[in-house]
Structures are given as structure tokens and as C-alpha cells.
């Protein structure tokens, strides 16, 4: 069991909403991915992957965020991040942040969210050009975070 699990969330049918998934797919093919990290290109329900988180030291979640930052910006957040919607916003779905809080109750791993700022989310299988053009830089940034965070976790073990 590898100590780090990276889960890319998103819906590839909804434009930039699928950026977490797209980045995860890039990571899977990237030779620079550390050997101690597993990567899943998932759907939009983080809770579904609970079974794959057992025994990990760190779970890194990649997800889209609509905010004022430039598209392609990657921000590091934990489950207590301020300013993000935490109220029950959806009738039958809970946000990645809520899911991280719930999962941390039952799984003894650390959870971290890498939020990727997007330009738009609408019907369509392509990322917007503003996010697509930034994809290599996003992957670079995410790889750097995984390397840094993972090394810290492995040192602690």
C-alpha cells in the first residue's frame, strides 16, 4: 500500500469542472510521479473512494474551484478552509470539503485539498482554453506539492 493517495475529482462532461480529473490523468502518465503515490482519476463523489483511503498517510484531493483567482491557480487548503461553502448546498451531494471532514472521522489519514481555479463550467468535453493552456503548469505545481507533502509524511514515519 502506497502511503499517499491522490484523487482527482470532476466531471469531464462539464468543461472546467473536470479539471481535477484531467490533472489526475496527466499525473498517472507522468514519469516524475513519486513511486510512493497512487493516483485515481475519479468522479465527483469523494466519499466513494473511502475504501481506497484505508491505510494511507495522506490523501490529496484535486478539485475545481470557482473564485477570483486566475484560472489555473492552485491553492492548498485543509478541511477547515475559511470562505468556502460548508453549508449543505446540494440536495443529494456533499462537497469535497464536507466529505473530507467526514472521512477524517473514520480514516486516520491527513487530508489536503488542492483547489484549482477555473474559468467556466458548462456542458462540453473540453477544458476552457485558459485552463487547458495552464495544464502543464498545474501538473508541475501539483507534482511539487505531492513531492513536498509526501516527503514530509515519509520523514515522519
Amino acid at each position, binding site marked *: 500500500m502506497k502511503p499517499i493517495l491522490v484523487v482527482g*475529482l*470532476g*466531471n*469531464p*462532461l*462539464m468543461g*472546467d*469542472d473536470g479539471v481535477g480529473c484531467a490533472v489526475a490523468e496527466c499525473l498517472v502518465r507522468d514519469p516524475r510521479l513519486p513511486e510512493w503515490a497512487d493516483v485515481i482519476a*475519479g*468522479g*465527483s*463523489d469523494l*466519499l*466513494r*473512494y*473511502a*475504501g*481506497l483511503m484505508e491505510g494511507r498517510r495522506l490523501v490529496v484531493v484535486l*478539485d*475545481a*474551484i*470557482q*473564485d*477570483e483567482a486566475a484560472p489555473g491557480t492552485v491553492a492548498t487548503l485543509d478541511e477547515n478552509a475559511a*470562505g*468556502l*461553502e*460548508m*453549508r*449543505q*448546498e*446540494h*440536495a*443529494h*451531494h*456533499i*462537497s*469535497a*470539503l*464536507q466529505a473530507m*471532514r*467526514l*472521512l477524517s*472521522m*473514520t480514516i486516520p489519514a491527513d487530508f489536503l485539498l488542492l*483547489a484549482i481555479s*477555473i474559468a467556466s*463550467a458548462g*456542458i462540453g*468535453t473540453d477544458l476552457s482554453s485558459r485552463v487547458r493552456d495552464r495544464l502543464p503548469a498545474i501538473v508541475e505545481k501539483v507534482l511539487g506539492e505531492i513531492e513536498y507533502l509526501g516527503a514530509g509524511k515519509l520523514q515522519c514515519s
Partner: protein
Amino acid sequence: MKAIVIEPLARVEGHGGITVELEGDSIAAVRFDVFEGARLLESLVRGKRYDEVAPVLSRICSICSAAHCLTSLKATEKAFEVTVSPQTERLRDLLFLGENIESHALHLFLLALPDYLNAPSATALAADRPELVQLGLRLKRLGNLIQETIGGRAIHPVNAVPGGFGKAPSTEQLTGLRTALLEGAKGSSAVVDIMASLPETDFCRANTVYAALNSPNQDSYYAGDKVVVFADGERTAVPAADYRTLTNEEPAPHSHAKHSSFRGKPFMVGSLARLTVNMRWLTAKLAIAAERLRLHLPSDSPMDNNKAQALELIGDLERALAVVEQLLDDGIEDERPVPVQPRAGTGTAITEAPRGLLIHSYTYDAEGTLVSADVITPTALNAASMETHFRRLVEQCPERTDGVLAQRLEMLARAYDPCISCSVHLMRKR
């Protein structure tokens, strides 16, 4: 004029929500708007090969991905007149059961319970009553495990293909599933205890028309080609191919989803409708549980959909175990999918997704290229019924303050377990 607007139901700004307009004691208007993403995704599959359709349309919803995938396959197979093996039918049944367990556990424990217990969210509830959230998460994971074992992965099943399954689960996998289900079934009594302890929420009483799949063996979410509509004690059967005589969709000027009605009346789909139409689903154990939950069928309270989901949840755990044991007793065959020969034609499939009837209807050309697709989700079918029930709730509410109305309307909306624009899930910074 006073307006109460509830928009937290939607993830897409400006799409979805409830608006109530009051003029003194009179109700000027009650409107429910729902964003219907599934309709827009139909355009993405036009022109695709038959084996590319299900993987795309399973992405309509992350919670109901197995239902969309299997309903899509069923429609394609009907268009090509393909008959799958009995083992495939059983495995598809099991996949549906897994999804229903997962979805109902999520809805009841993480979305509905916070409403009943005055917690603003599942995370807030988890702080006060961790045992409730942990039970919900355990049951949800059990549903996920079933889907992972049969569908090949936790979400958007890749193992389900036209004609069957790419790979049948092994005896070892099914044995592991049986062990997990036996363990999970121990949570059944707790589900009933918790639901029976909740306060009654009879703030909307209405004579309701129900519609549900009527499968040949009465207990399948997947098999069957006939819908039964239950209205005022009368049952009317509608064949799948005639689904438009059931839906009679009409544009609603204030809603992004069309409104459906049968013989001029909106109808409700989902767990409560399933139990009403298929009362024989109630085993002796479930009938006792229904008594404890004070659920009497047919019900005149749409809030009872939560109780019906609880009954289905414990019933599905038993049914899933029975299917797994049957598969083990018969011996699992390492069979390949039935060969699929494309032909020009139309196929319509109706199944029961966790939140109600799901319709996929496709037309293919002779080469197996999709010419047209019609996907009607349970939430779209429920839209007119929800709006009617919101109005009844406002009419019957003795205290029409903003806070009371908003809380009750949100609870009723959530009891329907709607899927509103769930194809988008992103976070938003305020």
C-alpha cells in the same frame, strides 16, 4: 407582496430553487425551477458508436452512475434485440442494489437526518452524533463495495458493457462480498431505531399519484418493461415503449425542466412510489419495520419518502445478500458478453434509479451509430409533483413566517431526494 426564495438546491447559479409569493393570506405563486443537465448531455452522444454511449451518459450523475450506465445498456440492447444471460441479469440487479444502498445511506444519514435533528450540515451532525454519521458512512461504503466488485470500479462502472460484463466477479470476490453484507446487515435494526425516533413531519398532506416500474418478479430495480401508475386505488399499466403517454412532457415557463403529468395529474416517483406500486416487496420483516415507522401505504405525505428509503435500505441489504448467495450456490460462470450485432432501430429502457423511474430511449442507424437520445431522469419526472406539494405545504402551514416556511420547504424538497444539476460539483468561494 412577500416573496420567499430558496435557492440552495442548485449548484449552478440561477438554476433551481423554490419561490413562494404571498399577498397577505393568499398564495400568489409557488414555483419550482430545476436545472436539467441530462437533457443537454443528450447532444454529446449523438453520432457516437453504440458502445461509446453508456460510458458518457453514466457521467450524468455521480450518485446514479450505475443506473444511467445499465439503463443505457438496456436501451441499446433492446434496440438491437439482444438478450443477455440470466447471470448478467442477476449481476445487473446486484449492481442496482449496491447503488441504491449507497445512495439511500448518503441521503438518509448525511442529508435528511441533519434536517430532522436541527443540524446545519452532516459535518455539524457528526460533531454531535458521530455514531449516526459513522453508521451512514459504513452502509454507504458497503454499497460502494458492491458496485466496485461488480462494476469494476467505485464509480462510473467500466465492467458493464453491451451484452453483459467484461469480466464476471470471482468466487473469492463474491465470498468477500457475502461476508461484508452479513456484517452490514447488523446495522439494519439501528436504521429502523433511528428513523423511528425522529419527530413526525406531517406538514404536507396531499392525495398523490405514484408511478413505478413493475418488474416481472416484483423485486427488481432493473428488470421489467412496464410502469404502473397508482392513482386513487386504481392501477394503470404503461409499456416502456409508450413512455411518452406516461410523461406527457410540457414546457414550464419558469423551469428549466419540462413538467410531466399522467392524465392531467402530476405523479411522484421514488422509494415511496415503488413501495406503493409493489406492496408485495414488503417482507414480514419490512412490514414490522413499516409499522414502527408509522408508514401506511398508500401514503398521503410525501415526507414519507424518507421512511420508504429506510425500508428499502434494509430490504436491499437482504436482497443483495440473497443474490450473492444465489450466485455462489449456482457457481459463477466466467462468461463473455453476448455478441452484439448493430441494426437500425429504437430501444426504450425504464429502470428504477435510487430516486425513481429513469428512462433512456435511443434510435440507432444500421451501423450502430446513435441518431437520437431521450433521457428523462426521476427528478425531471418529479418536478411537477414537487411544485404541487410545495403549494400544499404553504396552504397547510399555520405559521407562514419566512423561517418556518423555508425550513419546511427545504425538508420537503430534500425528502424527494432530488438530483439537481449534479453533473457539476465544483466548490465556490463566497
